[in-house]
């Protein structure tokens, strides 16, 4: 049934959107996302999808148009990167709090300044508290699979939240890999028909969208977002399992790679996990029991589940492709650390790959070797480290 084709990460995102056939898609170009929407625009132009395509004048308008279209009851998507995500952030918070399940591939790119076009996670990390579900992809196949699942996850009645599908700029967006496609029929059957819980101009149930909440209801509204995020934990796992039944590709909140007997491990997001798996294999050939925890769902954050693994392994490096200035280290490290305190494991942070600086398997192997040293000596040393940096 499945078709295997060579696709870039951007192609894979476009194929997923094409197979889902959303009602409305807002488009605005930004490197390295541009080609995703080029490809989708071609499908819209050729009548392959029935989507209403809106080329807007900025990302602020793209997210606003998505807000309007989702509020009007349409299944809606857009895609962006970096500065585009930063510019639309004002509206992203509103999309989430209004509980509109917009789907948005975010092709991760460093935020200015200095101006840069290459990969890091500073863009989506800046929106980690915006109320969006955030799912990271390791390769083009996952971009396709995650984008399709995103509609199901976000639209679930007990969730109703927008979803970012994160993919590493250039590393994934512009490199080609074999990808297995569901095709429109199976994809649309999987996501199901869209029945918005609330929409404008439902004359039997007239509503206002986004009304003023002051001291009276604002707080409760936020509390409801918290509850929706809690439900999203289950939604991501449930939809991933169901997708696995359909395709044979199972998705959980994270993927454990050779962790069961691991003495040392690293935790990472995105394409680096692929490199880390190679590094773990290389380390194992040298007798180091290395493993990788590939985090797929960053929001909601599966802190307890991660802590269990970290405490079991005992010596772990957390890889951050962004920095939380003034907090020290990166956001992933600090969030992991806030959950594992009780177990007192040895935990270190490596900030790497900012602005697209490459990280290779040899470097990650050196991290495993360092973790072994830490484990043996009992001395964690410097908590906040950099790798691949000139100092």
């Amino acid at each position, binding site marked *: 049934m499945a078709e295997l084709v060579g696709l870039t990460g951007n192609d894979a995102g476009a194929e997923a959107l094409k197979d889902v056939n959303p009602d409305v898609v807002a488009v605005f170009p930004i490197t390295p996302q541009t080609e995703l929407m080029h490809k989708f625009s071609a499908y819209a132009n050729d009548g392959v999808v029935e989507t209403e395509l809106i080329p807007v*004048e900025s990302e602020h308008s793209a997210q606003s148009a998505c807000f309007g279209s989702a509020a009007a009851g349409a299944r809606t998507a857009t895609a962006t990167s970096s500065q585009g995500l930063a510019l639309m952030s004002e509206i992203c918070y509103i999309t989430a709090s209004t509980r509109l399940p917009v789907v948005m591939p975010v092709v991760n790119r460093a935020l200015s300044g200095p101006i840069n076009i290459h990969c890091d996670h500073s863009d989506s990390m800046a929106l980690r508290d915006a109320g969006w579900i955030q799912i990271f992809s390791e390769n083009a196949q996952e971009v396709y699979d995650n984008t399709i699942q995103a509609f199901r996850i976000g639209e679930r009645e007990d969730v109703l939240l927008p979803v970012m599908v994160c993919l590493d700029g250039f590393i994934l967006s512009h490199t080609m890999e074999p990808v297995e496609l569901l095709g429109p029929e199976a994809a649309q059957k999987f996501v199901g028909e869209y029945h918005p819980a609330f929409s404008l101009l439902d004359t039997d149930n007239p509503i206002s969208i986004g009304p003023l909440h002051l001291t009276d209801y604002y707080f409760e509204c936020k509390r409801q977002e918290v509850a929706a995020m809690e439900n999203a934990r289950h939604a991501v796992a449930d939809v991933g399992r169901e997708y696995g039944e359909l395709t044979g590709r199972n998705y959980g909140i994270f993927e454990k790679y050779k962790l069961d007997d691991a003495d040392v491990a690293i935790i990472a997001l995105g394409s680096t996990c692929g490199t880390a798996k190679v590094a773990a294999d290389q380390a194992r050939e040298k007798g180091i029991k290395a493993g990788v925890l590939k985090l797929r769902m960053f929001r909601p954050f599966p802190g307890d589940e991660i802590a269990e693994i970290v405490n079991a392994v005992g010596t772990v490096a957390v890889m951050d492709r962004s920095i939380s200035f003034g907090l020290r280290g990166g956001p992933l490290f600090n969030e992991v650390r806030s959950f594992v305190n009780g177990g007192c494991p040895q935990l270190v942070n490596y900030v790497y790959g900012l602005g697209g600086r490459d990280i290779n398997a040899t470097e990650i192997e050196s991290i495993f070797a360092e973790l072994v040293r830490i484990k043996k000596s009992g001395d964690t040393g410097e908590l906040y480290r950099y790798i691949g940096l000139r100092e």
Partner: protein
Amino acid sequence: MSSTTAAKKPKRPHGYRRPDTLTDAPTHFCPGCGHGIVHRLVAEVIDEMGLRESAIAVAPVGCGVLAYDYWKIDVSEAAHGRTPAVATGIKRVQPDKLVLSYQGDGDLAAIGTAEIIHTANRGENITVLFINNAIYGMTGGQMAPTTMLQQKTATTQAGREARVHGNPIHVCELLATLDGSAYLERVSLSSPSNVRKGKKAIKKAFETQLAGLGFSLVEFLSPCPTYWRMNPVEALKHIDQALSKVFPPGVVKDKTREEGKDA
């Protein structure tokens, strides 16, 4: 002549000289692109007016992003579309300097529409060099607000349609309605004589700023052979035959003339 040694500098055609304000960085622009022409014109006018030590430019996001690699003057980068606002900040602090904002049509008339309108409306005493190539060049040829009707782009693959995508925006005419704008001229880069008119327009805009008369802008109808899917010669013809019909070149507003009349 025949005894020229390899050590000797090759003779240049009569009169050609690289402006002092232009670095010798090799161009990154596509063959036939208009950005390089305007970069050079700006450098020539700065040289001729002796402004190199008093000019500050703001570079856009777009194909003009590397302006600082070409001009030997102080240049600041700005976020996409925010160039005139950054230029405003600079000019308020250094009112005696010549402050330039260099922008493409996406930067100026799409994502940065608010900034250009309000900068002009406040009559900020800066000069904008506006490259209208009817496309987003840098990101690979998507529709700009200045894209022609029926023009095929990556986001209007069947051609721009007024009903869905709106009509081309006439920036000079739009800004002319604002009291703060002092000098607005549209020029074409389609021929050597038009390029010379472009140079005059830049000079006039700089003079307007130096005289403290307010906001000035020169719009250049500029070829983008790559995303017009034409060769450079066809692209120049296209400016004359198509673009210039929709965006007629000429002085759209000139307060210096109006003020002369009043006197």
